[in-house]
């Protein structure tokens, strides 16, 4: 599915300083019944965000109007658990384009890259700096420069580089997806499959 190209993002950020945020929290299983990709942003962090009577939980960060932005900053091991791509869809559909953490679960990271959410892994120390910067001033902005592979805390100028596979970087900056690539090499795949019996 097509997504907007990602180049340089400058935005405020929403802090979620909790470790091991699993995909069941990002989008609970009962919201996975759709047959189309619509409405997932509404249920992002559903059970942390709303009470059982659907009233918002005042102390959850997404219900706190102080915090806004296209960057979600989470604690270590973000996105563990289920392979549901719906978690990455929910994050994208809510309006985030980037998730920053000191560690990501594998499948979640892949899913993000496939749907146009940039996972930015930083050192634990830099993550702490980011949380501190937001706590000090919720208007503080961050610059995520994908071509340069660099995240900067604008207020202090402190920056850190991040890793991304060059192929995936090319995809993200152009809004390409892997299926385009694979369809182009279909004949090679067909030839290869002849030596791969069922």
């Amino acid at each position, binding site marked *: 599915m097509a997504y907007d190209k990602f180049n340089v993002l400058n935005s405020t950020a929403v802090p979620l300083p909790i470790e091991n945020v699993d995909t069941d929290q990002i989008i609970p299983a009962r919201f996975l019944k759709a047959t189309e990709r619509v409405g997932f942003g509404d249920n992002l962090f559903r059970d942390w965000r709303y009470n059982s009577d659907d009233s918002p939980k005042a102390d959850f960060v997404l219900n706190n109007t102080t915090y806004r932005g296209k960057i979600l900053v989470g604690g270590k091991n973000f996105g563990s658990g289920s392979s549901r791509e719906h978690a990455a869809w929910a994050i994208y559909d809510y309006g985030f384009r980037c998730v920053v953490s000191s560690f990501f679960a594998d499948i979640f990271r892949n899913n993000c890259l496939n749907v146009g959410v940039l996972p930015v892994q930083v050192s634990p120390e830099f993550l702490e700096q980011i949380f501190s910067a937001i706590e000090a001033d919720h208007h503080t902005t961050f610059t995520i420069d994908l071509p340069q592979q660099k995240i900067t805390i604008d207020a202090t100028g402190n920056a850190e580089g991040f890793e991304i596979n060059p192929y*995936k970087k090319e995809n993200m900056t152009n809004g390409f997806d892997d299926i385009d690539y694979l369809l182009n090499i279909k004949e090679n795949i067909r030839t290869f499959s002849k030596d791969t019996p069922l």
Partner: protein
Amino acid sequence: MKKTLFDKVWDKHVVQQIAQGPDVLFIDRHMVHEVTSPVAFLGLKNRNIKVMYPERTFATADHNTPTINQHLPLQDPLSAKQLDALERNANEHGISYWGLGHEKNGIVHVVGPEYGITLPGATIVCGDSHTSTHGAFGAIAFGIGTSEVEMVLSTQCILQPKPKKMRITINGTLQKGVTPKDVALFIISQLTTSGATGHFVEYAGNVFENMSMEGRMTVCNLSIEMGARGGMIAPDDKTFDYIKGREFTPKGADWDKAMEYWQELYTEQGAEFDKEFFFIGDEIEPMITFGTNPGMGIGISKDIPTAAEIEGGAATYQKSLQYMGYNEGESMIGKDIDFVFIGSCTNGRIEDFRAFTEIVKGRKKADNVTAWLVPGSHQVEKAIKEEGLLDILQESGFELREPGCSACLAMNDDKVPQGKYAVSTSNRNFEGRQGPGSRTLLASPIMAAAAAVTGKVTDPRTLIHS
């Protein structure tokens, strides 16, 4: 360079490598279920393409399905729509579909091995993280997202960087009452829920060699719970005996040819791993979890650790204990429980029901416990009846439900209510996993059985019939 089991299978499936990019990995068998596939099929429709190899693709309905009255129309319109979509997509693309009511229906990771879809040395994917289960046969099997499901449907390939390699070796003798589930929960408690992220794990040592195929499936199934991409065990005679003669396994000359490949599937002496762990089997106790991720497990005789004793942030740890209603330093033995769930792709196989039945035999279900016994497939259900287990279970006050994922993720009506405790043989104790506000204690089938008959958390070793 010496090759590992993982290297051998991976390298054999690389169609081509992208410079500075991922490998194009050919997928032998693709399993599909109703929840993570509809948007992928929609993608194919939008591109106007068909499934490239429908004969390599297998669809079953499991996540959403009810576990009672499966013969009646579905009550939930959204679930019904998803099942309809899968059936329609399967028909349109010529994929075999084992839907609700079909004799082969069951949890995708239970039916795959039952019918010989799962084979040694194969690459197997599914839009479900517990696809790692199939690694028990020496396959590379892992969970994928919906975009990747679309890739495999349309080109039978996926783009993946080759993961790092980890080996976990456990030798020794397992104590009485220690099951494969306990071994897996023990490993995860040692490595943490992210300790194997980025790695593909090979399990080695006599503890795994001595396990049944069902036990190996339980272990490999839980690989994802320590973040691993997947887990695998080298195939041996036990593996070959298990798969021989099943519907989708090769026959005759094809079998002989396949065996030539399968018998090469082991890690060569001197092959290198990025990380290695060694544990002693004798030191593992029956395990139970006390927190909100599968790494938060302890031996049943131990107390809940204090924040100071664990790695990671104290705030996250306290939040987790608060959710569970527990305190540091408490014993799990004697804790109140309300529900018992035996089932799921982790522990929903015949061996699990045999173990559960063995404990409850001659005892009665505790009045305060609601028990959900959900077989992993119709084949498991049939075996439970044919082996006489059902009679024993009924005598003890238990009922058997119909197959499906059920309360493992509570997409259907099998939901544990707010604040209630469930001893569950499933794989995740995340907040709300078994229903909004539910509290899950992960354990083995015999720990679940002990809880079911005593009405509280009980060391199953005290109930083993001599």
